[in-house]
């Protein structure tokens, strides 16, 4: 599902110029294209880490 970034930006009243919107929409579309398939691979039991640790056993 592609997103209409320009509409979302306008609705949130961010004050971005038309030219800026074009650039942002293009970049976010590109990111979305790469990111969405990754999200589909997530298993329900995978939690996000509230404080990231480089090694799991390193909890302070």
């Amino acid at each position, binding site marked *: 599902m592609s997103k209409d970034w320009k509409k979302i*930006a306008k609705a949130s009243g961010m004050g971005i110029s038309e030219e800026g919107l074009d650039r942002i929409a293009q970049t976010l579309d590109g990111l979305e294209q790469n*990111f969405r398939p990754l999200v589909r691979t*997530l298993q329900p039991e995978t939690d996000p880490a509230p404080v990231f640790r480089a090694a799991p056993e390193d909890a302070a």
Partner: protein
Amino acid sequence: MTLLEAASALRRGEVSSAELTAAALAAIERLNPATNAMQLVVADAARAEAHTADGELARGAGRGPLHGIPVAFKDLFWTKGVRTTAGSKIFAAYVPEYDATVVARLRSAGAVLIGKTGMHELAYGITSSNPHFGAVRNPWDRDRIPGGSSGGSGAAVAAGMAFMAMGSDTGGSIRIPASFCGVVGLKPTYGRVSRYGAMPLGFSLDHVGPLTRSVRDAGAVLNAIAGYDPQDGSSSRRPVENYVPDMEPSIRGLRIGLPENFYFERLDPEVNAAVRRALGTAESHGGEIVPLRVPDIHAINTVARTILLGEASAALEPHLEKRDQFGADVLALLDQGRLLPAPDYINAQRLRRVMQREFAALWTRVDCLFTPTTPTTAPRIGETTTTIAGENEDVRLAATRLVRGINLLGLPAVSIPYGSDRRGLPIGLQIIGPPFAEALILRVAQALVPAEVPVPQL
């Protein structure tokens, strides 16, 4: 002269801190107009600190190898009583009341603060062409960028204005300028060095580390700054170790991973050749080269970008209404982050867990990985696209392509200069290790590079 050589000379009484500081200030006066590496110089305070250090050294009250050594900090580290702008108009008049932990630790080790280095606005970019404070220029070719966002730190160290300049790295911002400026840049493991008092960009991606003219110098600085800090919630309680490698360390029997995918796929041929020469040198020193496939770095970079977009916009949320105070490139990134839905950020953090697990499996097969730091040498100032192996690529995405993912994984990595291209521009080699293996990657780096990196003729 390297930091540790200067420290030895200080201990032997062959030079004073006042002389080292005067030489650094003279270098700044001579070279800063051409490079803009230093954004703020605190000459009087530095002379006073050097005088104090000389007195302490004369009384036999030496505090270790950094005592009396002139150093600089990227202008996003809080320095008590000294303006800290983060390269931003928003913080142009901000004077912190505290030192960042790394500043405090280096001060307590006796280092002399000579000033603050220029940077990409808010550390959110890789050119260091700052719209408010001017472009930092590469000492090897002043028409080229030094990289970023710690571009002033890279340029200052390369040009001999400081023995060490502290940098920060959220998506390559220590290693990219190290690569483009021909110096050593160390990004420690996430949690190894406190982030307290470093203006945040990506809370879970920001790392703090030194840029130096030798590998051993980077280890000496890490010795002074590593260790638990209760003021940083992500700080690790793991014990620190001695990070300074021997002058001629052995790497015999070490398993060095050579990625078969991603890292060598789209490179300037001279960069490719230099990294493969480094692998040959490592092998001749007894290292075992292990070709292997690495997890999907493109996916890892995608997740890192998603997290950074969300975290940076969150960090700067209180200022986002002042749109005219931001440079165009930074504002565009901040706007993108504001549009990112919350579930995307959370799912990116979940994917990070999976990717961390996948990547960790590599360390059963190899002790470290060799990759290029950047796919090209330094681009020209103002260039927005670059052609690599016949393909056009955005300069920012190209410069971060081989380094950004390592921030997501929190792994230690060092960039060392390894040869130069036909124009004489430095090429960077990246050595990546498992979590908290800083001593190991510095040992490997020391085995490969000369005692001091080449110096540009300015």
